[in-house]
């Protein structure tokens, strides 16, 4: 695409500059606030790592659990979502379309409502209610549509249908066709869907805040707790931990997805 004429647009530039400042300043501010000795005094109070240490002691567990839940969510949504995506891509019945619409409802309905429903239905089963599995179930329900939608559109490619037919006429059984031909062919879509699921799970708060217990906290839940009850330096340090730990993981996954797309995508 040819670049548009580079004439000056002072108003547009001003809006862009102001918006950029508005978006970026708080991020820098929070990083700084987590590293100074005393926030109200400011930079003059000197830099320190003690807030980061304190955050790690009190909330360190939440980081690991958020990553574990997100990874488990990706595995679970792939395991039940990929076959489901195949069925939806191949089926032309009205029931399939209705099911597809239903699957996306958890995204439209407020997370609070889903959490309420889960608590109402399964809250009595103490072992389930008080475990991380309860949170994982909520995450899977919320992220499943993203995996299914992404992979279903990949399954609908015409060359894939031809490939599958060829395998079938050569005598391959369905498990062989599915695992040997179909899954490898849509693998970039599975990775892309997995990245979406992982990102959504790590940042999920609406559902998780209702479903959590003091012993089953994820990173966003811990953040909310620290903002409400701890001093501002700890809240900032915890936010910094989020930046340091979670963002590189997201970037690595994104780079992986792009690599997959380049190597194996169409």
């Amino acid at each position, binding site marked *: 695409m040819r670049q548009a004429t580079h004439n000056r*647009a002072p108003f*547009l530039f001003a809006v862009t500059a102001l918006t*950029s400042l508005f978006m970026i300043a708080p991020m820098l501010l929070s990083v700084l*606030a987590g590293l100074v000795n005393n926030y109200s005094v400011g930079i003059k109070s000197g830099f320190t790592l003690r807030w980061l240490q304190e955050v790690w002691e009190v909330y360190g567990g939440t980081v690991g659990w958020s990553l574990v839940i997100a990874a488990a969510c990706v595995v679970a949504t792939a395991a039940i979502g990929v076959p489901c995506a195949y069925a939806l891509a191949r089926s032309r019945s009205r029931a399939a379309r209705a099911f597809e619409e239903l699957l996306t409802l958890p995204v439209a309905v407020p997370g*609070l409502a889903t959490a309420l429903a889960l608590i*109402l239905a399964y809250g009595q089963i103490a072992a389930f209610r008080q475990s991380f599995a309860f949170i994982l179930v909520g995450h899977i329900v919320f992220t499943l549509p993203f995996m299914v939608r992404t992979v279903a559109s990949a399954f609908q490619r015409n060359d894939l249908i031809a490939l599958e037919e060829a395998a079938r006429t050569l005598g391959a059984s369905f498990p062989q066709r599915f695992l040997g031909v179909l899954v490898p062919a849509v693998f970039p879509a599975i990775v892309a869907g997995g990245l979406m699921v992982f990102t959504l799970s790590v940042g999920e*708060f609406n559902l998780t805040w209702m479903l959590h217990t003091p012993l089953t906290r994820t*990173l966003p839940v811990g*953040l909310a707790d620290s903002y409400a009850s701890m001093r501002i330096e700890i809240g900032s340090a915890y936010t910094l931990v989020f930046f340091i730990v979670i963002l590189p993981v997201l970037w690595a996954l994104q780079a992986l997805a792009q690599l997959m797309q380049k190597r194996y995508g169409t």
Partner: protein
Amino acid sequence: MSTRQRLLLAGCAAPAGAFFLAFWLLPVLRLLILPAEKGWDTYFVVLTDGRYIESMLNTLLLSVAVTLATLVIGATVGIYLARRSFLGKQLLLALLTLPLSFPGVIIGFFVILLGGRQGLVADLSDQIFGERITFAYGLLGLFLAYLYFSLPRAIATYAAAAEAMDLQLEEAARSLGASRLRIVRDVWLPELAPTTVACGAILFATSMGAFGTAFTLASKFEVVPITIYNEFTNYANFALAASLSISLGLVTWLALFLTRQFGSGQTMR
């Protein structure tokens, strides 16, 4: 399609279907009928009780205002950046869309850092005016926070849409003597209408259902998700919480439905 093929496909969808049924559909259906146990008028409590009417109106007005502001600013920034190339452009775009991965609570915290009692604005205003100005806990703070988490989505959408804009139309208009403002009104707006409708719908739905940001700010301006949360945790009022959730879901769905109708009406021209 043979019966065997149909069975095979049903079998593929079965695990997801079973999971969805057990952990969402049935529990939500149970939630839907819960208010009925306390009387059918519980469903309409959002229309009858002044407090809930106020909460719903608050949420609606806030969401509409945020959506409109985000669309205008996001379009401006997204299109401006897409058409320029300069050193660090990719980095700037990456930074501007970074908040998409933040939980809402972090954004509430950012607004507190900017406009709270110990905030940046309070410090600056103290030095300039001798008075600490705090805005984080009122409507302005909430509005800015909602703007903060909505802008990345709009900027990303419009930056992508800008790639597909037809420059020839613009060149033609310019050569015919149209002013810049005229070009925006007559060329850009119709071209970007489908994108705007779709993006606006997502922004509106996200704002209506947002919880974490309002929760962190503990604002005096009460939005429906916070009301639902309070009813459930403070008063253990399951039925009322369920009723409000249904109302919120319906209002959001209705707005999305109307924008879809309006949007499809536009593109059919």
